[in-house]
C-alpha cells in the first residue's frame, strides 16, 4: 500500500509542477531580448554571406566563446592560469623524489587503465580538433586529457609520475606553450596591422567593415573556422597540463607536503 502512495505522490507532484510552470506561466514571461540575442547568434554563427559578422562555425557555443565574446574567454583563461600559479606557489619546493612507490589498485584495474589511456588521448584530441564543428572545444578536451593524470595517480600511485618522467616542470612548460599559442593568435592581427600599416583588431577573426584582415576559414575544403581551431588546440594544451599540475600536486601525501612547507617555516 505504502509504495502505491509514494508512486501516486510522485505522479501528482510531477503533474502539478508541469502544469504550474507551463499553462499557469509560473516562471513568468520568457525574456524576449534573450530570444532576439539567440536568433542573432544562430543567424551569424555560420553565415558566409556576412563575413564581417559571422564566426564561420556551425558550433554556436564555440563561436560565442572564442569569437563573439572572445575577450571574456581570454580573461577566463588568465584566471585559470593565475589559479594554477597560486597552487604552484603554495606547493613551491615540493619534490616528487620523496614520494613512496604505492601498490596502486588491482591488476584488473591496472591492465584496463593501460588500454584506456591511449583511447582517452585520442578522444581528447578529437574533442579539441572538432571544437569548431561539434560540441566540445579546448577546455572540455583538456579536462578529458587531464583524466589521465588522475588515473595514473589513483590506479598506479603518484610514484608513476616519476617512473614515466612526467614532472611539474614539463607540465608547466607545456601549459605555457599553450598559453603562448593563444597569445600568438590574439596578437597576430595587431602584428600584421603594424607591419602592413592596415587596420586590424585584437583577436580579430575575419574581415570587418574597416579592416581587410582575415584568418583562413578553410584549408582546402576543410572548414577550420579561422581562429577557432587554433584557440581550441592551444586551450586544449593549456588546460590539460594546467589540470595535470593540479592533480599531480593534489596526489601528494600530506606528510610529504608538510615536510617541505615546514622546512620553509624554519628559515
Amino acid at each position: 500500500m505504502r509504495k502505491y502512495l509514494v508512486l501516486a505522490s510522485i505522479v501528482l507532484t510531477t503533474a502539478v509542477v508541469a502544469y504550474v510552470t507551463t499553462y499557469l506561466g509560473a516562471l513568468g514571461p520568457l525574456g524576449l531580448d534573450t530570444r532576439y540575442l539567440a536568433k542573432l547568434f544562430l543567424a551569424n554563427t555560420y553565415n558566409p554571406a556576412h563575413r564581417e559578422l559571422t564566426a564561420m562555425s556551425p558550433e554556436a557555443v564555440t563561436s560565442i566563446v572564442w569569437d563573439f565574446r572572445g575577450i571574456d574567454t581570454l580573461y577566463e583563461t588568465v584566471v585559470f592560469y593565475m589559479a594554477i600559479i597560486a597552487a604552484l606557489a603554495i606547493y613551491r619546493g615540493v619534490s616528487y623524489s620523496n614520494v613512496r612507490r604505492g601498490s596502486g589498485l588491482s591488476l584488473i584495474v591496472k591492465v584496463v587503465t593501460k588500454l584506456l589511456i591511449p583511447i582517452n588521448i585520442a578522444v581528447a584530441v578529437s574533442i579539441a580538433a572538432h571544437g569548431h564543428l561539434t560540441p566540445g572545444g579546448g577546455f572540455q578536451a583538456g579536462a578529458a586529457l587531464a583524466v589521465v593524470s588522475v588515473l595514473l595517480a589513483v590506479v598506479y600511485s603518484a610514484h608513476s609520475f616519476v617512473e614515466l618522467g612526467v614532472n611539474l616542470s614539463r607540465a608547466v612548460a607545456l601549459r605555457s606553450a599553450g598559453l603562448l599559442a593563444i597569445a600568438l593568435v590574439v596578437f597576430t592581427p595587431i602584428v600584421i596591422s603594424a607591419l602592413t600599416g592596415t587596420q586590424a583588431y585584437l583577436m580579430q577573426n575575419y574581415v570587418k567593415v574597416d579592416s581587410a584582415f582575415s584568418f583562413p576559414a578553410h584549408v582546402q575544403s576543410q572548414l577550420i573556422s579561422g581562429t577557432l581551431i587554433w584557440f581550441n588546440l592551444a586551450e586544449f594544451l593549456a588546460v590539460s597540463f594546467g589540470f595535470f599540475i593540479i592533480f599531480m600536486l593534489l596526489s601528494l601525501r600530506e606528510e610529504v607536503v608538510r615536510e617541505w612547507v615546514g622546512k620553509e617555516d624554519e628559515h
Partner: protein
Amino acid sequence: MRKYVPVALLVLTAYIVFSGSVSPYDVVLGSLVAAGVSLITSKYVVRDASKAVSLRRFLHLVKYAFYYLTIAEFRAHRMVIGIILSKAMVVNPAIVRVPYRARNEYTIVACANSITNTPGTVVVDIDQEKSQYYVHWIYATGLDRETAYREILEEFEKRLAKVFE
C-alpha cells in the same frame, strides 16, 4: 616496429569512431595522433610484438567475442532471469575461490572481466600470489576450487588462452 601497430590501430579506430567522420582531415589528424600515442604508450601496452600482430590470435579473439556475446551471455542471463522470475527466488550465494592457470596479464584480466560481465558472477578480488580470483556467485553449485573453476572459469580461460597466452 611491429609493437607499435596494435596501439596505433586502436587509437586510430577510437579517433575515427568518436569523431564519426572519415574526412581527410580526420584520417590525417587521427593517423598523426595514433602514431604519436603509440610511440609513447606501446612499450607499456605491448610486451610481445609477435603475438600482437598475429592474425591467428586475432581470429581467436573474434571467435571468443562471438562466443561470449551470444552463448555465454545467453546462458548466464537465462539462469539469472530464471531466478528472478521464480516465485521462491531460490539463490545460494557464496564467495568462492577460483584458481586460474593463465600467466599472461591480458588473459587474467579478460577472464576476470568475462566473469564479472556475465550476470550471476562477479570477481570481487584477485590474489596474484596464489593465482586465484575471489568470485561472488549467486547460485553456487559447489564451494570447492575445482567445481568453481569448472563452472565459472574453464570455458573462458581455455578460449582466451588461444588469444593471449
